[in-house]
């Protein structure tokens, strides 16, 4: 308790026939409010499991998941939906925009369901898409789509912004621009951002780096002085 996000001994065990596979095998970490946290690790380290559990898309087999004072792990399906609805902003690797809504409408769609949204146009302008409100996703580049996706997440005014490999489908420069956008958001708006990636090169820009391996947190470091995105190379 006390921390904004805290996972305590979180386990996720899948039963595959006879064998139990632990995707998460006792994960513990904390993230403070307003931090830019990066969860890194190779494929199969349990990043996605952590993301699913944090994002309320899946439940932990055991353990506690404290988000802003509530134990999400104990939520039922409906509570989880509400949690996703009100507390979580999600940025997908493949943007996952609704193809037949315009950029603005995609943002507004998300806003429709949450309690105290931000102004959609303002948010879109903030992410740098002030002139592309009325474009459909197919008319936007990948980076732009990801910006829309971020805007959609931010506009909900969530407690936590979860990003799943946001640069995974983007080229180097665009990826950097997106990371910059995320970092800026974190800095300027005090948004807690958790970014999941296999690209450890990104780590230096984070306030906190959580390294995972085999379903466990292998190492958690706090970066006293995170570097600006521009300086990172990979």
């Amino acid at each position, binding site marked *: 308790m006390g921390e904004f996000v805290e996972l305590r001994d979180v386990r996720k065990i899948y039963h595959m026939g006879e064998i139990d596979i632990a995707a998460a095998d006792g994960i513990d970490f904390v993230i403070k409010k307003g931090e830019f946290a990066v969860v890194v690790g190779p494929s199969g380290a349990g990043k*996605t499991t952590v993301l*699913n559990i944090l*994002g309320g*898309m*899946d439940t932990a087999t055991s353990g506690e998941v404290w988000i802003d004072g509530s134990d999400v792990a104990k939520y039922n399906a*409906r509570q989880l*939906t*509400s*949690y*996703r*609805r*009100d507390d*979580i902003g*999600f940025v*997908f*690797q*493949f943007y*996952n925009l*609704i*193809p*037949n*809504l*315009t950029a603005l*409408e995609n943002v*507004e*769609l*998300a806003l*429709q*369901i*949450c309690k105290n949204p931000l102004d959609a146009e303002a948010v879109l302008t903030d992410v740098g898409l002030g002139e592309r409100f009325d474009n*459909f*996703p*197919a*008319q936007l580049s990948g980076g732009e789509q990801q910006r829309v996706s971020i805007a*959609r997440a931010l506009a909900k005014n969530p407690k936590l912004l979860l990003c*799943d490999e946001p640069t995974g*489908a983007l080229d180097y420069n665009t990826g950097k621009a997106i990371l910059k956008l995320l970092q800026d958001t974190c800095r300027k708006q005090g948004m807690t951002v958790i970014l999941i990636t296999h690209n450890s090169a990104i780590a230096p820009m984070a306030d906190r780096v959580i390294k995972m391996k085999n379903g466990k947190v292998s190492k958690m470091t706090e970066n006293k002085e995170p570097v600006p995105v521009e300086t990172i190379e990979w």
Partner: protein
Amino acid sequence: MEIRKTLGRFVSIFFIVALGVAFYSGIRSSEPSMRLSGDSYFDKLKLMDIKVMGTMGLTEDDIRAIQAVDGIEQVEGSYSKDVLCPVEDAEKVVHMISMEKSFNKVQVSEGRLPEKAGECLIDEDFLGYGDYKIGDKITFRSGNGEDLKESLVTDTFTIVGFGNSPLYISFGRGNSTIGNGEVSGFVVVSKESFDMDVFTEAYVRVEDAGREIAYTDKFNELSDAAVAALEDIKEQQCSIRRQNIVDEASEEVTDAEETLAEESGKLEDARQELEDAKSTAAKELQAARKKLEDGEAQLASSRQQIEDGEAQLAEGKKQLAAQQSTLDSGRKDYESGLAEVKKNETNLDNAESEYLANYAQYMPLIISGKEEIAKRKEEIAQGKQTIEQYLAPIEEGLTQITQLESLNSGLIEVEKGITDVANAIGAAEQSLLEKKPEYERISLIPEAERTEEEKQFLVDWENLKATKKGLEDTKAGLEAKQGELTVQMQAAGFATQAELDAYLKSEEFLDQKKELEATKAKLDTQYQEILNNEQELLKTEEGLLAKEQELLAAGQQIADGKSQLVEAKNQLARAKAQIDDGQRQIDAAWATVRGKEQTLEDGKNQLASGEQELQDGRSEYEQAVIDAAAQIADGEEQIADGEAKLTEAKQDIADAKAEIEKIENPKWYVQNREDALEEYKGYGENADRMRSIGRVFPVLFFLVAALISLTTMTRMVEEQRVQIGTMKALGYSKLLIAKKYIYYALLATFGGSVFGVLVGEKVFPFIIIYAYKIMYQHIPDILVPYHLEYAVQATALAVLCTLLATVLSCYKELASQPAELMRPPSPKQGKRILLERVKPVWKRLSFIWKSSIRNLIRYKKRFFMTVFGIGGCMALMLVGFGLKDCIFEIVEIQYEKIQFYDASVYFDDAITGEEREEILSYMKNQNAVSKYTQARMQKIKAKSDKAEESLYLTVPQNVEEFEKLVNFGSRTSDDVYSLEKDQVILTEKMSQLLDVKAGDKITIKDEDRGEREVTIGAVCENYIGHYLYITPELYEELFGAPARDNSLLYMMKEGQENRTEDVGEHLLNYDNVLNVSYTSSLEERMDDMLRSLNLVIVVLIISAGMLAFVVLYNLNNINITERKRELATIKVLGFYDIEVASYVYRENILLTLIGALAGMGLGKILLQFVVVTVEVNEAMFGRDIHWPSYVYSLLFTVGFSLFVNWVMFFKLRRIDMVESLKSVE
């Protein structure tokens, strides 16, 4: 492999194809299965192939001749007869048929077959009418007055069993000419029960026909060939038969003629006898009559006498009565006179006593009065004298006074006069003096020269002189008088006047004068008083005298009265004597009258008895006359009868001869099964109807199914483009890659087809034939063999369709480069849609709606597939419901809106005028009948350029009346047509069959009168049967002869419909009324027939519903599968399950509604097509779907849609959010 992964898809293709194929092959094979089921039943029961009927029956020879014809396998003569069977209180017509050895086997359901004469088996369907038991005896009646025993061995039969016959496979039993015209059942008896010279019909089996299936062309060909062969021998057989009959009849005629001659002789004798009897009777009667008349004359004279006597008597009585009344009034007068006399007498006595009293009282008074009066008169005279003595001196004194006074005044007056005259004389002298000069001048003037004035002056002068003279005379007179008066005065003692005057004015004189006057007045008064007293006395005296007179008069009166009274009494006494005398006379007269009366009474009695005698005599005579007349009439009648009979017999013989001459060749009716057995034909028609349905409905069904499986396969190939690309990149050949999909499709489709065929071809025909079994309940077995033909058709079609689609889409994909294939398909672009331009609407929509609507537009293929799928199912259901509407409404419309009449009666053309009149007057007198009219109905052929059909030519006798019973209206508009003189009205279905419309010309063919061309004036709504309505005028003009009415339509009054059959039954009693058909039973029959379609329609609706379900499920499945990622994403965004579901449902609901709407349009169009196809030639079905059908179809469709969506809800919940994290495949 792939199938396992996409089991849902595989199964859905499998089932859609199965459903389509099952439906297609199933419905289509219903038709042959129906025929087969029928055929097996017919064969089993050895239903005849051909029926031969002869108008004069068939002889053994005929049967042999038929047997000899080529192609005839077997023939058997048979009997039949329509009889009336008692049912409860009523009678029903049953068709009695003989049991055949090798034809038309009867299936016994209870009991056994009749074995000997007098036993019968009854139609088991007839049991519905009455409660019969085996062992019951039934006595049948012929309906036409003929003795049943003429044609049957007995008319009472014992029921030995119940059963059914292949001749009657449904409810209809045909029509009859007896009873109410409707056959209600059949009765099977053994041949021995019939007692007929010839067979009524013969049943024929055609060689090889048994091997063919009934209703098929092959069967019909064989049957038709046999019919044709029989037609060939019929002429010959008929003429043989005719010759036989003619010979037989001629013989009979000859016999009859002989008998006739004999009879005619007998008749002549009888006539002679009668004549003799007649004359004898006449004579006897004559004598009797004479006697009677004499008696009558006598009676009349005595009656006259009595009447005279009576009259006299009455007269006498009257006189007597008058006399009596006079007498009575006389007596009354006498009595009143007597009373009066008595009264007068009394009065008189009273008056007398009064008079005497008066006289005694007054007379002394009167006498004393008279004395007093005389005394008083004396006193008065004395008084007078006294007064006169006193009065004389007083009056003298007074006269002296007066003389003095007048002397005095005269003197004064005269003195004064003298003075005055003296003055006047002085004035005249003066004047004369003055005028004297003048007078002297003038008097000098000669008279002639004097002027007028001068003359006048002279006159005046003279006058003045005269005046002066006059005055001087007067003065002289006065002075004389003065002298006279003075003398008198002096005589009186007065010297002068003054002295007198003074005396007169002296006191002494005045007192004296006053005293005198007073005394005189006093005396005058006293005198007056005395005069008054005298007057009074005179009056009193007069009164006394009068009184005296009165008294004396009264005395006289009384004396008079007394003498009068005596006289009156005398008179009265005389009158009484008269009256008594009169009374005596009258009494004597009465006695006489009474005596006469008695005599008269006796006479009357005598007369009455005489009259009675006469009366008796007369009635005796009359009776005798009547008897005689009756005897004569009787005799004459007998003779007339005899004559009539003779004439009749002659006529008969003549007729018979003529008839024999006329005897035409008897006719044979050679009928195949369809002509002979209406129900057999109906069964075939139902099969045809199924074929029609099978041609349209399943095709559409199949089409939808094929389309869906096609789409599914196409989508599958498209979905797997990456895999295809990879395989292609790996170097697999196109064929190899395509093979997978082709196998997949083949497996699903073929599997589905086989499954469909296996199930469908069993289930559908079974259900349908089962449905028809409601009507054809005696067909025992339902045979539903597989019909490979349809199975192959359906399977091939399904497989081909899907395969082609698969190959095509594979080909499309394979044509692309592998690299391109391995990339995800460029995502569909979001597009702005038209609706967005309508800002007000668009702004109001939520994003979810926006998205849904854009989705609909974006996935055009899916949109159209769904709309088509749902629309197709909706249309199919609508057609199912609509078909029901169209078919079932026709009966109601036909018999309630078009043909109002309750029954139609058909006459034989031989009907006589009288019979027709009788029927019409009967109809007229039926209160329950509201309208009726005659018409000619004739089945004829009508021809247009394109087709030839047969129809009923209907010629109303009275167009106006006819139009009250039949409505010529348009189906599509509210127009009501009227039959125009030079045009005809054709019913709608016929106009379609002939392909003609109003204004066109068609040719009608009358068998006898040839072809005529008519112009169609209008096409009218009509559903059952075909009619051509034509006015009698036009008919006559066309055919040159007036139409002979051969039918009568009638309508009952409201509420009296239940009496329809009573009227019909009565009409059937007429010889020439052939048949009565009732609208209600037609209606029932039609309803029965159509009801079996009901189940078929239910099958259609259920199948369509199933298809709708599968289609919806499949399309939804595709929808969800395709959009898994999108749905996962919105789940991640925090949409609740229900929100996610409604995101999908919105589209589905929209699609369902659009599809349903499209389906309504499609269904309506389709129905038109289906109805026209399904229709049989004899009827037209309705064309409109009723609104409840739309509602039902819509509800079903929406219901299915909701159900599918409900199932989908669980599928949606199972979507894993992790999907959203996956890359685009």
